[in-house]
């Protein structure tokens, strides 16, 4: 089913976001954000913590509704979809959760088989082959009968990846795929992201902070801050675009447009010196 959705090669933009505005608990998360995620590329979304990068992914999958603006995934306006259409759309989207989110009731094999069992009536042999194929792709065919609590963080994330690609999606969203991984596991995941993109042509969106890793894998980087895209470009050019945001972010400075201090009242006054100074 994903083939039919994918068959619009003339449009090079898979996800088109226009004027996205979201207010959560009185705080503006996105302020008329525009973003075009190119088809068949690896796109990285970076930004200071708390800028709503995960929220952005949830908007793309329709788990959260925006207050204004529109999001088109493969030409379909997410906000207009009914529950069934939305679920149909999600079958074409893989989502890798930060903490893998494997179903603790099932072993590795059943976790990967889960979407197949829920949405298809394939014969058991075919399910078995498909699952083993995906597990082989992430290098964990031998761990098929382990339970999720027996896996290390890196292994769990690779299993989650196998589960995310079991339907051969057109788009995979990676939420912080490198957090908490040792260098070996990090490189394994990195390799998988690149392989999946190159061999299967899957559009990948990753939200991450690991600059080095992103530079290796991403084709395009968006830098989000204060609810807007403040910089974008490929890894080589973006660091040199001269804006204070990129300088602080790629230069690793502690203070800058992202303030070191959380907004607060006058410091001297808070310490009780206000009267003495004046």
């Amino acid at each position, binding site marked *: 089913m994903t083939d039919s959705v994918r068959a619009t090669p003339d449009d090079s933009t898979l996800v088109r976001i226009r004027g996205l505005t979201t207010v959560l608990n009185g705080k503006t998360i996105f302020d008329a954000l525009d973003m075009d995620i190119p088809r068949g590329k690896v796109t990285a979304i970076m930004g200071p913590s708390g800028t709503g990068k995960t929220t952005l992914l949830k908007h793309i*999958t329709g*788990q959260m509704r925006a207050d204004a603006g529109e999001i088109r995934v493969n030409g379909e306006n997410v906000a207009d979809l009914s*529950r069934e259409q939305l*679920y*149909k759309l*999600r*079958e074409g*989207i893989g*989502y890798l*959760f*930060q*903490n*893998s*989110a*494997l*179903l*603790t009731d099932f072993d590795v094999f059943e976790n990967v088989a*889960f*979407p197949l069992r*829920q*949405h298809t009536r394939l014969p058991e042999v075919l399910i078995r082959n498909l699952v083993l194929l995906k597990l082989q792709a992430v290098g964990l065919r031998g761990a098929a009968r382990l339970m999720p609590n027996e896996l290390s963080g890196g292994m769990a994330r690779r299993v*989650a990846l196998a*589960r995310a690609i079991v339907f051969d999606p057109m788009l995979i969203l990676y939420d912080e795929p490198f957090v908490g991984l040792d260098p070996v596991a990090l490189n394994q995941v990195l390799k998988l992201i690149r392989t999946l993109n190159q061999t299967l042509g899957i559009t990948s969106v990753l939200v991450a902070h690991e600059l080095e890793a992103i530079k290796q894998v991403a084709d395009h980087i968006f830098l989000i801050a204060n609810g807007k895209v403040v910089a974008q470009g490929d890894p080589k050019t973006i660091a040199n675009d001269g804006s204070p945001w990129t300088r602080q972010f790629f230069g690793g400075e502690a203070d800058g447009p992202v303030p070191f201090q959380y907004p607060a009242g006058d410091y001297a006054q808070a310490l009780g010196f206000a009267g003495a100074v004046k």
Partner: protein
Amino acid sequence: MNARAPQHNNVVIQSLAQIGNCGLFLLTLLVAIPRSFRYVRETVRQLWFVGAMSLTIIMVCGLFIGMVLMLQLYNVLSIFGSTSASGMVVALAVYRELGPVVTALLFAGRAGTSITAEIGLMRATDQIDAMEMMAVDPIAYVATPRFLAGLIAMPLLCCVFCAMAIFGGHLVGVTWLGIDNGTFWSNMTAVVVVHTDIVNGVLFKSLVFGAVVSLIAVFQGFTTPPTSEGVAYATTRTVVASSIAILALDFVLTAFLM
């Protein structure tokens, strides 16, 4: 599903809001029943966890309730020389009140808490979100099967409990204290009526209690903040809220059915 959205300081208003949310959640569950038909396997699996796995505690407790009830009744009734009535009193007490109520309380402690904790942890580890993302409706896949399993399991557990209590009463009364076997049964059968005692008492009450306990358990699991403290707190809440609901409803149902 955000339980923290309306923050009221007033305990009464807060409880009312909880009850209201719970009622709305029940509607969501019921609406999802047709959608959960494709997850029958999951319902069967939950029936195993909440029903079959609770069997041991239900059987042991039922046995002891029947035994101690018989012991007490024998001692009191022997004052009036009517120990032969003790079997029938055990049966009536167990069928009408103790069976459904004690089974429901045990069920809340055994199965309700595990449902709440499991769903809370599934939320804390993003498993619920993952299901959403895999286009599997968590209400239809997680909530409704557990609710239905509780609904089916409770009457069955209650029947087992009552049978064990009768057996325990028989063991103490007839085998140890020497009440005549025939008198024991004849008094019981003369008084116990299928419609009022077994259908209304055992089955109907336990069906209602099963629905209430599993609704509260699932609701608490789904609405608690997905953190360790949140899950611990929700588990406690399940037991407290279920116990109050069971005892209050028991009074209402008894008044209603009599």
